């Protein structure tokens, strides 16, 4: 039961802001900037805090069917994170349980260093989550992409903590029916079919404003 508290007089805005229980969005976005990877789409970059995908965090992409350009959203970031550190200690990219075979010529065309790409095919969802947690927390991976049919909240929290510990970008692809569940992911996107481009909806943005994004060129 929610207790309602009625003030005797309406407080001023300054009073409300001075209250420590009020979390200020502006302060959060002004927090020490983490490195971000550009999404390759200026309209999406503009909507994300810091101007790109946040590193060391978990991103959840909800979509029902593959083929909406969901991997394409992350490929520029994957290329950038491999190139930034130079060839000496080029970080790894791990794809766990992808729905189809990742096609090497396409990835090479986009500029991904194939020698540092690892594909993992676990036999069950639990194994996949375990593998993702290991890869995220290992510290040698820049990005871990994970495809799952469904998972519970407890595992998502573990993945988020692992991503933060390992400084890796974790991307989880899940069916759209999970959109109404709560999730610890710092960024949640919903992709739906559309004409001519797929619709992208930011469900949750830590330090930003949710809402639909126009995926213009």
């Amino acid at each position: 039961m929610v207790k309602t508290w009625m003030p005797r007089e309406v407080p001023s805005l300054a009073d409300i802001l001075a209250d420590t229980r009020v979390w200020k969005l502006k302060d959060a976005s002004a927090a020490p900037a983490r490195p971000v990877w550009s999404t390759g789409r200026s309209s999406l970059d503009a909507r994300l805090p810091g101007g790109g995908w946040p590193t060391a965090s978990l991103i959840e992409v909800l979509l029902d069917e593959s083929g909406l350009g969901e991997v394409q959203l992350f490929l520029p970031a994957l290329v950038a994170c491999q190139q930034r550190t130079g060839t000496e200690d080029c970080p790894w990219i791990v794809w766990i349980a992808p729905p189809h075979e990742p096609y090497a010529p396409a990835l090479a065309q986009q500029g991904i260093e194939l020698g540092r790409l690892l594909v993992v095919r676990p036999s069950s969802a639990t194994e996949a989550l375990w593998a993702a947690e290991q890869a995220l927390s290992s510290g040698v991976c820049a990005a871990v992409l994970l495809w799952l049919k469904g998972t519970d909240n407890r595992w998502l929290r573990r993945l988020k903590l692992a991503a933060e510990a390992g400084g890796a970008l974790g991307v989880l692809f899940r069916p759209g029916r999970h959109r109404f569940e709560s999730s610890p992911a710092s960024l949640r996107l919903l992709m739906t079919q559309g004409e001519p481009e797929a619709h992208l909806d930011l469900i949750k943005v830590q330090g930003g404003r949710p809402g639909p994004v126009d995926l213009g060129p």
Partner: protein
Amino acid sequence: MKSPRAKSRTADLFAAAGIAAPVPAAVPLCARPLCARPLPAPPVAPGIARAPRLKPLWYAVVFPELAQIEHSLDELQKLCTHAQGFTPFVSIEMPDALLLEIKGSIRLFGSLEILKAAIDACWQRLGLKSCSATTPSTLAALWLARAGESMHGDDAGKLPGLLAKVPIACTAWDAERLQTLRALGLTRVGEMLRLPRGGLARRLGPEVVRDLDIAVGRQPGPRRPFMARERFRERCDFETEIEHVAYLEKALEPLIERCAQFLRHRQAGIQTLQLKLKHRELPATRVRLGLASITSERRRLSDVLTQKLMRLELKAPVRGMELISGSLRALSASSLDVFAGLTGGSSRDSAPQLVERLRARLGEEAVYGVCLIEEHRPEAAWGKVQALPLCAPSQKPTAAIEPQLPRPVWLLAQPLSIPAPQLLQGPERIESGWWDGKGVARDYYIARQAQGARLWVFQERHTGLWYLHGVFA
């Protein structure tokens, strides 16, 4: 043993044995050598002073009893370790003999006679019947020892005379050659030395002439020194039988610690490891481990072993275990980093470690990389890589075949038959593979699904049917 490559390795072999390469003494076989070839100069890098050459002296010992034993190699390897008390260079001569290079040891023991007596006494103590001979040539020593001629000396000039009486059966030539020789009426090596080389080489093969050259000291007879294979092997028996894997992990810790220490002392690493769990009645359970790279780190060994053990179902209680390492390998420079353990912290690990851990739990095939293959057919243009370039970043792919249209991220394992789609881009004609029976003649297009997904489709040119082959995700 006597391939042409052996000759070029001669210098390396002798260098490995710590002795200078031998100078082949040009001793005339007979009064008129029929084709005395000039011997090539031994390879010496320019600028390196020539070390004083030490002519090797070979002590051969033959154990007639071993010729009848089936697994004489094991026995000879054991005897090698005894022989290595006298010289570092011991070579195994199958099936029943050892060759020892003893020139370097003569000064240590005083004289050749004392050394020879000491080595012979060693065989006697082991209760073995033996026959030995010492000459400056490898094969002459072997043949003389087999013939039972107890000759010990370092005068190469006497060799042809000594070998004259040696029966041809003492050479290690095959039965067919010996039969040919007997048919020619030859029974002694001396008789062969008097024959023209060309004819011998034609009838019996150039190997025979080369062996004769080696025997009389015209050519060096390179040998490969025996190296004892070292590996970690330690067992631990439990007072009470262990039924839970968790306790096994605990008991394994000291073994792994000792294994890591063993490796550290030798500056070596291992790539394979085996754990044997002994049961009271059932045969022992063997847990085999393959590591992604050569390592000597305790943390990595225990990590992989623990992962394997976690997935193990014990058939019966365990009463003892044994940890056996694979053969020792040299560590790479990066794994010898003193500070690697300090700077890394406990939560960070290396890429090989991650791959190992994933493979230990998910299986070898479940973790792989992808590579490009220079091929026009889309389904053949990529491949799975199991041996990942785990330590060094791979070379840039040689993109000799640059596709015209963009390729999709997902490729379907089998093309799916679909109705004619709405085309966006194309065509790209791919016609290839007629030579291996999997020929394709297709026009590829980028198409749009009604719901908005971008697809990679093709039309079979012969049938006109449409197929879905990839998805632009």
